[in-house]
């Protein structure tokens, strides 16, 4: 019997492609964000509000992942930014190869911001690097405030938590302070914004975070 040391990541092939993507994003000065949540937490609604608030000629594109249907891409196309649907056909997460494939016919030099909406799932997407600069996790107030404790990986790995559907707070037994506390237990210092895509409440904070992230990214890229 011989024991051969392997000492490499299980997803090393995905990580390799993700590193290539990250280098390309860096080369073109693109900020890439990977949006992750359970199904129905409001990722697409947040993207609708985001695209609506951005200037019409902004250099922004969206990749949106689902197991089936082109519904999300159709919802997002009306803002006249480049949008492409990734249908995974059963896979519960996006991987780096899917991103690479779907970027193939876009000119990266025309973009500054790439928003990726992952498949609705709090588990597997957290394992697959897509070459993003940051993950953003969305948690709606119709879910439990203990979600960060139940799914620590994604809350730990995300830079920002978007607490969504806050217009429903008067009608649901969701303690937003406990949710914030739980998120910061898993990820001390985590940035958090609270939004309602229906009333527009808190969207200003989200857009400010996004603008600041783009500004910092640009400065870093220029410096390198």
């Amino acid at each position, binding site marked *: *019997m011989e*024991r051969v040391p392997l000492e490499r990541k*299980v997803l090393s092939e995905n990580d390799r492609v993700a590193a290539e993507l990250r280098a390309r994003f860096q080369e073109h000065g693109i900020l890439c964000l990977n949006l992750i949540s359970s199904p129905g937490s409001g990722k697409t609604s947040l993207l609708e509000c985001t695209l609506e608030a951005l200037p019409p000629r902004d250099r922004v594109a969206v990749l949106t992942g689902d197991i089936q249907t082109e519904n999300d891409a159709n919802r997002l196309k009306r803002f006249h930014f480049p949008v492409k649907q990734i249908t995974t056909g059963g896979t519960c997460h996006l991987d780096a190869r899917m991103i690479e494939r779907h970027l193939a016919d876009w000119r990266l030099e025309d973009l500054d911001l790439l928003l990726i909406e992952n498949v609705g799932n709090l588990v*597997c997407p957290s394992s697959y690097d897509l070459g993003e600069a940051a993950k953003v996790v969305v948690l709606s107030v119709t879910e439990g405030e203990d979600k960060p404790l139940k799914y*620590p990986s994604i809350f730990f790995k995300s830079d920002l938590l978007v607490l969504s559907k806050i217009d429903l707070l008067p009608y649901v037994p969701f303690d937003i302070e406990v949710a914030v506390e739980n998120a910061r237990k898993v990820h*001390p210092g985590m940035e958090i914004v609270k939004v309602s895509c229906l009333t527009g409440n808190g969207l200003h904070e989200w857009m400010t975070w996004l603008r600041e992230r783009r500004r910092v990214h640009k400065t870093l890229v220029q410096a390198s």
Partner: protein
Amino acid sequence: MGIANSVLEAVRTEMSLHPGTYPCKVGVRIGELAAIDQDALRFCFEAIIRETDLESLELAIEVCPRRHRCQPCGRDFVVRDYDSRCPQCASLETTCISGDELELAYLEVEEYGASTVGAKSTQ
């Protein structure tokens, strides 16, 4: 299932470097922050090796706890119940140094004919 497939692919790639042997056991390290359910991984792994030449391959899982390092005093410690306070100096300025592993650790291979138990005859 994707993870199980990646483990198996890595085993097959590695085996091409060791002619005349068969794999007995593959060791993987999974951090508690890696979002991998051990039972689910084991279930998927067993499902994909069933009735293949690797049917007797054993999956050994080592679970790695979340570890933090204290910035002020430098102490490394295991984080339990999300309490990331340093047990030595009580500082909250601690950073995560491990716990999200999803790594292939080792592969145990046996030469054909070296043991009375063959690759396919164990099942």
